[in-house]
């Protein structure tokens, strides 16, 4: 190999940021602008838009979280609702015991759901294929059974949550929650981007393509899968932590809803699983359409639509919107 310094392939442009950090910077910038915009808009828009925005943001976090293991690593998690509900009920328990600020609830939810991801992963990710998927499905069902029989958190009846008073920058609690979710979504997308571009993402991509060949190329597959399962689980838990305050009444059927697990798989698949922005696009598209359908037709129609879109994309555009955009860009070069 040549020992001389290789000639620079691209002359460095006079920017402050190396190219590899540009997307990350764009995510932070967009997130900050959106947080500021949400704060400024305040109560000038109807509360309905906040409710709709909250749901879409929640799905951006969930599908981004799902994609870190499912999209990058190819290990499908059917139990998103289990991790999400772990976050919800962490808030419920902490709220009943201590009345802590929501940010602390969210940190605790991240720790608990992250541990759940690590534990489920440790028990099943040594095995290849569908074992992890089945285990995550089982985990959600077991957790739901536990919660149904746990009267401290309301059992099957559910539990009411009283929203604390809100002051300062925020006009209403819904306003606060949406601002919080914009921040959380920004953090989640930033985390997914960082994972994708780091050695973890490269190793996960090798695992997704061929785990055996990855292992014999030196990729520590179990370790990478566990890291991904932990980050993924933690983000799902964080997405669940504010939810009790959003709905103010929560029962196991809502927290463990099938729609959560289904959407967090469908959205990345529709958007595209290979990049950090695929799940964001998918969640935004499917989430918005579902909101519109819920209002204009019926709430039953929106799950039907998710199913139809999922089948259409898997059959016609398996790389999702990302794949379509990339093919279009290549065609125009």
């Amino acid at each position, binding site marked *: 190999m040549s020992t001389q310094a290789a000639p620079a392939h691209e002359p460095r442009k006079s920017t402050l940021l190396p190219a590899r950090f540009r997307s990350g910077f764009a995510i932070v910038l967009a997130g900050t602008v959106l947080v500021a915009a949400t704060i400024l808009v305040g109560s000038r828009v109807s509360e309905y838009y906040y409710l709709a925005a909250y749901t879409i943001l929640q799905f951006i976090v969930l599908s981004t979280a799902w994609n870190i293991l499912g999209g990058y690593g190819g290990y499908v998690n059917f139990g998103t609702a289990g991790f999400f509900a772990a976050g919800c009920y962490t808030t419920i328990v902490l709220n009943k015991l201590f009345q802590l600020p929501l940010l602390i609830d969210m940190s605790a939810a991240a720790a608990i759901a992250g541990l759940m991801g690590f534990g489920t992963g440790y028990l099943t990710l040594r095995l290849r294929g569908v074992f992890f998927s089945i285990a995550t499905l089982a985990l959600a069902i077991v957790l739901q059974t536990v919660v149904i029989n746990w009267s401290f958190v309301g059992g099957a009846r559910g539990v009411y949550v009283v929203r604390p008073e809100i002051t300062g920058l925020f006009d209403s609690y819904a306003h606060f929650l949406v601002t919080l979710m914009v921040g959380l979504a920004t953090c989640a997308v930033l985390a997914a981007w960082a994972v994708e571009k780091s050695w973890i993402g490269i190793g996960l991509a090798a695992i997704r393509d061929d785990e055996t*060949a990855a292992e014999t190329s*030196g990729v520590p597959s179990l370790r990478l899968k566990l890291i991904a399962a932990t980050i993924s689980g933690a983000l799902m838990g964080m997405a669940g932590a504010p939810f009790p305050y959003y709905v103010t009444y929560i029962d196991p059927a809502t927290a463990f809803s099938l729609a959560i697990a289904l959407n967090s798989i469908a959205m990345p698949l529709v958007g595209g699983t290979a990049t950090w922005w695929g799940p964001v696009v998918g969640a935004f598209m499917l989430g918005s359409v579902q909101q519109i359908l819920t209002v204009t037709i019926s709430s039953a129609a929106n799950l039907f639509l998710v199913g139809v879109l999922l089948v259409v994309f898997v059959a016609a555009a398996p790389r999702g919107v990302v794949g379509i955009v990339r093919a279009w860009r290549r065609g125009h070069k």
Partner: protein
Amino acid sequence: MNVNILAAERISKRFDGFAALTDVDFILRKGERVGLIGPNGSGKSTLVNCLTGILTPDDGSITFDGADITAIPAWVRAKRGLARTYQIPRPFRGMSVQENIEVPLRFAVGHTSARTISDAAQFILHQVGLVDKAGRSPKVLTQVELRKLELGRALAAQPKVLIADEVMAGLSDSEVDEILALLTRLNAEGISILLIEHIMRAVMMFSQRIVVVVAGRKIADGLPDDVMQQDEVERAYLGE
């Protein structure tokens, strides 16, 4: 040089009732070129899988570079310098050819600088003759090119031992010579090589020693000409 770099002692592997390997001893010395032959289904690939950590033998032990590696996972073996190719090419299909080469550079060798990795990958693509395919997807490669990619990815791990599992299948005579020249050069640079091959011309030209496995047992181990003259080997290959 008589130091063993890779050794298997009395390893056995069964799949349900089927004995794929029975009490196989195997030695590869530092700097040596060994050919492993045997009919299809004789256990060659199972032996390679046990050596590289894809499979764990039911009995016996494996040592590499002075350490017992019987219970050590495949990725650690790769990091320590045990690389292999796959008989049926297993590229990372979602990556470009160059990115395929970069995976072992990053993980097995432990390079972190993007520039170092890309330069090293270019060098290896040169070695195996895939430079003009660097940015392409493995999906558009021919079978021959895929075998070269397998070899390139194994070389990228900077191995002490290279196990080449049928890297020449389907290649033309001149391409076989090209790969043999490459392997011989790598061997001269100090890499010990185990060659699993059906092309007898290549095996006889390349190997300093030949090991024959038939029905999960080692039936011969010695100098190429001596081994090929043994009755048992002749029977296994030509029938009674």
